[in-house]
C-alpha cells in the first residue's frame, strides 16, 4: 500500500496512506458494507433492488451515485408507516445481547439509532483516532460531556478507557442550570483535554465566574479544548483561546447517523475520520457532486456495519469538502459543516446560513467576536437582516451603525440592529434563527 510519511504523530497506519491509497481503501470498505447491507438488511435489499443496483457492479466510489439518497423526513414517514423505530437498517451479530438506542432529534421529529457493543468498539476506535488528531493523549481525566440520549454518550466512556483516563460522570445533564456541577468536575479533576458542546461552554464560564473562578483559572492546565455542536469561525476559536487561556482549540463535527470529522494541527477544516464514514457534498437539486470547496448537502455512507447502518444518507447539513493536500499530512479530505439547510435563508441569488453572518461581522467589526446575537425570523420574512444583539455597555448607537453598514456592504440587503438587554445564555456562541417571540 502506498504510504506517506509526513504525519508527525500518526494514530496508526491508516493515517499514513496517500490520498489515492485512501480512496482505494474506501472503495474496498464501501463495497464490503454494501455487500453486508444487501445480504442482511431488508431496507437496503429492497432499496438497491428498486434502483436496479447490483453490488457486484460497484467498482469505484463514483458508482455510489447510482444509489438513491434518503433523508430524515423519509425515515420519519417509514417509522410512522411501520409503527416502529426499526426500519431494517439495524444489524447485530449477537442477537442475544441487548442494544442501546440513542436519539437523533430535530425540528421535524425524532429518529433512533441502534448501538451495540461491537459498534461501540469499532466506532470508539475511529473516534479515538479523531480525538488523537485533536490533540488528546493518554493519562488525563475525561469529563463525560454527552447526555445519555446522545450517540456521543456511547463514545466518550470508550474514549476514557482507550486513553487510560479516569471516567468522570457529572450528575444532572448538560443544560446551563447544571453548569456549576461541570465547573466542579473541571476544578476537581483538572483534565488536560476537555470536550464540550459549544453552547455549554459559555454557561460553564458564567457559572465559574459566579463561583468566583475566572475562566482562565478554570481551564488552567487544559491543553486542548475540543468544541462541537456548532461550527466555529476562526474568530470564535481565537475568542475561546483568549477567554480560557487554552492554547489549542479543536473542533469536531459530524452527524449522529455516522459522520465524524476533526480539526488537525493546521485548523484548515476538519478531516473526515476515514474508518467512520465516506462523505460527499451534493447539489441539492441535481444530486451531483459539487465542486471542491463549494457548498452542497452532506450525504454519507457509514462504514461500520453494526447497529444502525446509514448508506447514502442526506443529513441536510450545509457542507464543503476540500481534498487539497493538508500540510498536516493526513490523507482524508477536510470538511466544514457550516449549518443546516433548514436554517438557511435567501437574499436574491445568495443562500446564506447564520455562520456567514457571524463570519462577516467578525471580519468587518472584529470587536464583535464572541458577541451573541440572534437572527430574527420576522426580519428575514420581511426581506431584511435583522439581528437581536446584547446591548454593549457603551457606544451602542455607533456600534449599531457599523454593524448595519458591515452587513449591508457584505450582503447587499437592508439590515437592522435591535439591542436587547440579555439573550438566553444557551445561544452564546451559536447564532440561531429565531422568532422574536421566542426571545421574549
Amino acid at each position, binding site marked *: 500500500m502506498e504510504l506517506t510519511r509526513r504525519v508527525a504523530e500518526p494514530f496508526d497506519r491508516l493515517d499514513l496512506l496517500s490520498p489515492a491509497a485512501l480512496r482505494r481503501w474506501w472503495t474496498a470498505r464501501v463495497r464490503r458494507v454494501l455487500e453486508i447491507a444487501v445480504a442482511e438488511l431488508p431496507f437496503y435489499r429492497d432499496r438497491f433492488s428498486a434502483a436496479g443496483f447490483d453490488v457486484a457492479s460497484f467498482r469505484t466510489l463514483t458508482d455510489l451515485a447510482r444509489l438513491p439518497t434518503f433523508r430524515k423526513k423519509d425515515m420519519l414517514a417509514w417509522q410512522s408507516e411501520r409503527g416502529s423505530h426499526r426500519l431494517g437498517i439495524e444489524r447485530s451479530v449477537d442477537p442475544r445481547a441487548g442494544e442501546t438506542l440513542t436519539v437523533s432529534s430535530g425540528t421535524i421529529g425524532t429518529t433512533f439509532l441502534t448501538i451495540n457493543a461491537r459498534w461501540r468498539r469499532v466506532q470508539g476506535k475511529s473516534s479515538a483516532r479523531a480525538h488523537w488528531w485533536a490533540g488528546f493523549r493518554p493519562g488525563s481525566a475525561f469529563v463525560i460531556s454527552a447526555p445519555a440520549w446522545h450517540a456521543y454518550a456511547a463514545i466518550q466512556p470508550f474514549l476514557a478507557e482507550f486513553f487510560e483516563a479516569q471516567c468522570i*460522570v457529572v450528575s444532572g445533564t448538560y443544560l446551563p442550570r447544571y453548569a456549576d456541577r461541570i465547573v466542579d468536575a473541571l476544578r476537581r479533576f483538572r483534565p488536560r483535554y476537555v470536550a464540550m458542546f459549544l453552547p455549554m461552554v459559555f454557561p460553564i464560564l458564567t457559572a465559574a465566574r459566579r463561583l468566583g473562578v475566572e475562566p482562565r483559572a478554570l481551564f488552567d492546565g487544559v491543553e486542548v479544548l475540543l468544541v462541537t455542536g456548532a461550527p466555529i469561525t476562526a474568530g470564535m476559536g481565537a475568542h475561546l483561546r483568549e477567554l480560557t487561556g487554552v492554547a489549542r482549540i479543536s473542533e469536531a463535527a459530524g452527524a449522529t447517523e455516522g459522520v465524524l470529522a476533526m480539526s488537525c494541527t493546521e485548523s484548515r477544516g476538519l478531516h473526515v475520520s476515514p474508518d467512520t464514514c465516506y462523505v460527499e457534498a451534493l447539489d441539492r437539486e441535481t444530486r451531483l457532486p459539487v465542486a471542491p470547496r463549494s457548498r452542497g448537502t452532506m450525504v454519507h455512507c457509514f462504514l461500520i456495519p453494526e447497529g444502525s447502518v446509514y448508506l447514502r444518507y442526506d443529513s441536510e447539513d450545509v457542507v464543503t469538502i476540500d481534498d487539497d493536500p493538508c500540510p498536516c499530512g493526513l490523507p482524508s479530505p477536510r470538511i466544514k459543516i457550516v449549518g443546516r439547510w433548514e436554517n438557511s435563508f435567501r437574499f436574491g441569488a445568495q443562500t446564506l446560513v447564520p455562520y456567514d453572518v457571524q463570519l462577516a461581522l467578525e471580519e468587518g467589526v472584529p470587536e464583535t467576536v464572541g458577541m451573541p446575537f440572534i437572527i430574527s425570523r420576522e426580519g428575514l420574512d420581511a426581506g431584511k437582516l435583522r439581528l437581536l444583539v446584547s446591548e454593549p455597555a457603551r457606544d451602542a448607537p455607533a456600534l449599531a451603525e457599523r454593524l448595519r453598514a458591515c452587513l449591508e456592504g457584505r450582503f447587499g440587503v437592508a439590515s437592522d440592529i435591535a439591542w436587547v438587554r440579555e439573550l438566553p445564555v444557551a445561544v452564546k456562541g451559536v447564532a440561531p434563527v429565531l422568532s422574536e417571540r421566542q426571545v421574549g
Partner: protein
Amino acid sequence: MRLPDLRDFPFYRPRLGRGAPEPWALEELEDHAARHDDPFGGRLRAGVRPPVALQIEMTSEPPVWSGLQPRELSAWARVLSRLWERFGLEAGQTIAFFDYGSNPCVLLSSSIYVSHLKRGAATGLGANVICNDGVASMTGRFLGILETVRPSALVVRRDLVAPLADAIATQGRRGEGALRWAAVAEVEGAPASREAHRLSDSLGVPVRRLLRADAAFLISGDCAACGFFHLDRGYHVEKLPEGQVAVTTRFAAECPAVRYRLGAGEIVAPGCRSEPAAWRLAWS
C-alpha cells in the same frame, strides 16, 4: 468481597471506636469534603485514583464524588440486573428511562454509558435500553419514544411524573399493549406512594417505587407481593436507635459505604414469596 480496613480512610478514621464506625449521613460527607477540600469526602485511601468517579447528585455544597473500580461497577450492575429481573424485564424487551444518564439506574443499565462496565444491568439480560433526558421540556419526545419504540418498562424521575401524566391526559396514552410496568425514582430515598399511584393511573400499568442512596451505592425496589423494599444480598442493613436504618454495602471497597444512615425505616425479616431469602425494608 471483604471490606477494607477503615483506618486507611480519613472520613472513617475519626468515626471509629472499638469496632464499627459511627453511622453517618450525607451531610457529614459534605462537611468533610468542604473542610478538607476533598472531592471524595475522605472516602478514598491516600494516592488512590479510581478509574470511574461519580458525582453524587444529592450533594451540592460542595458536590461530593464517589469512586469505583471495574469490579465494583460490575457488582453494582448485578444488583440492578437482579432488580430489573424481579420487576419482570426479559430478553428482547426494552426499558426506557426518563431521567438523567447520571442516575445509576440508567448509568449501569447499558454497558455503553460508563467506562469499564462489561455487562450492563439491562443489556446483560438481553434487553434494550433507551434514555430520554430527565427534563420536563423533553416530555413530548418521551411520548414519541413510547409510541415508536414501544418499551415494556419505564423508569421515570419523580419530578417528571406530573408533566408526563399531564401530557398523557391531554394527548392520550402511547405504546399501549407493549408496556408492562413502570417505576418511579427519587434522587435520594424513595418517592411517595402517591407518585406511583398517579403514574399508574396515567399509564394503566403497575408502578413500582425505587429506593436510591448513591453515597452507599444502594438501589432497591419495592415488591408487588409484600409491598416492602427488597434488599439485594450486596447490602447489609441494621437497625439504629429512634427508628433509623443504616446500610453497609458489601461490594464497595474503593470508596467504602459502611453504616450509611438511610433514614427512618423498619427492617423486615425474609419471607416474601417472590424472593424468600431477601431482607426487606418498610419505608414510608
